[in-house]
């Protein structure tokens, strides 16, 4: 059942790597944006709010296209990053991670924001009177109390990244070993006569992967939730 071919294994491992990297890089931004939206009033907040949720409502192909023209080799941001930092996104797995991170971002920000909004600010005040500066209060009180939301956000982003198809294939194409994730591999196999069996194996694997992620996240979330509630 699990006798995946090397190409299929490559797709699975690549998917995992892309989803992990996407989630890890999105997380600090997700916490920062979630914090801004939960705690601060500023000009353009509604705009930022809308912008964050845009990938959720736009057709993924549109997001992919926008990424291509801005982060592609000739795109303004892509060219700048390539020239100054040597970071290339187009047709690389890093590009897939970028598009997956952006597609998962709205799902990540929402639970983090809600968790931050639910925190009793008076606890942070109390921490202040006990000698903790603003950053220490954030680190020792705010962040631990928001942890269940942060985990939920990270898991949703990871799951979205694992399954992302439209934006990724539009932005970085479907190159085996570089940008061909499980989804893209299944799609490719379905186009090939006789590829059904391999596609089926990958589908099964995708289901197992998703379930495993769900179980692990549930366990983490429960532990963090218990900690926060003080059990």
């Amino acid at each position, binding site marked *: 059942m699990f006798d995946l071919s090397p190409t299929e294994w490559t797709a699975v491992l690549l998917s995992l790597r892309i989803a992990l990297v996407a989630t890890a890089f999105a997380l600090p931004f997700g916490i920062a944006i979630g914090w801004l939206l939960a705690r601060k009033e500023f000009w353009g907040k509604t705009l930022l709010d809308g912008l964050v949720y845009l990938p959720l409502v736009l057709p993924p192909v549109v997001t992919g296209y926008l990424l291509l023209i801005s982060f592609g080799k000739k795109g303004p941001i892509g060219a700048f990053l390539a020239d100054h930092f040597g970071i290339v996104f187009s047709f690389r797995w890093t590009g897939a991670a970028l598009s997956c991170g952006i597609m998962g971002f709205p799902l990540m920000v929402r639970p983090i924001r809600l968790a931050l909004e639910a925190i009793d600010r*008076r606890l942070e005040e109390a921490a202040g*009177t006990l000698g903790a500066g603003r950053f220490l209060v954030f680190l*020792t009180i705010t962040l631990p*109390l928001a942890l269940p939301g942060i985990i939920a956000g990270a898991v949703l982003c990871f799951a979205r990244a694992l399954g992302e198809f439209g934006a990724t294939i539009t932005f970085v194409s479907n190159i085996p070993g570089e940008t061909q994730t499980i989804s893209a591999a299944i799609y490719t196999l379905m186009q090939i006569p006789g590829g059904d069996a391999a596609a089926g194996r990958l589908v099964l694997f995708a289901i197992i992967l998703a379930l495993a992620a769900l179980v692990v996240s549930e366990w983490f979330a429960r532990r963090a939730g218990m900690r926060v509630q003080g059990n």
Partner: protein
Amino acid sequence: MVRPPRGHAGAGELIVLAVDVEKELGTFKLAVRLEAAGGVTALFGPSGAGKTTVVNMIAGLLQPDRGSIVLGDKVLFDAAAGINVPPHRRHIGYVFQEDRLFPHLSVRQNLDYGRRMSGRPRDPDDFARIIALLDIGHLLERRPRLLSGGERQRVAVGRALLMRPGLLLLDEPLASLDAGRKREILPYLVRLRDDARVPMVYVSHTAAELRRIATKVVRLDAGYVVAAGGLELLDRVDADALG
């Protein structure tokens, strides 16, 4: 720079805290001038008199519009000089009406929080002395959620004391407790007054409570100090059927 009045309080004690502040909150106007020496200074008055507003300004949680706050030889706030020391550098312990214990930390970690934040080394003697004083040694490994209201408030007092404050603010620390729990905690607070040698500002609208613990009384009403002096001020208010 505004020099706050220095000198000696009634009993010949040195002034520890000098507050001279004004604040407008919507239609509520507050102008308070008070001094506190060692012992327990009661901030006494009906609900809405501005007692919590005053302690919040002392703690640095609320910024006065005008005036100054001086603790010992340290200017904490001076509107004219543009001085406003943030709460975490004021070294003022604050026991809130609600315990505000950190739910994700054990009692021990709650008690230890102030020390950790200031980066001081552990002091087992100090720790042992205060948990003995408040009788909370058997609670150390528990989470705040599993404590009774009275236990929680005792831990909150311990947490504030263990940061080694130059001043301890207690804002109606018994208000959220029933009569039985109040009787349970009050002796600890009296012991604290006699043992800990930390000057305290104690907010309450209950004369009976203050009669047990206060050494000096400042009476507030509608944002103004209407009287300052000894415990006899509590009697007069009782006669007025306030408190």
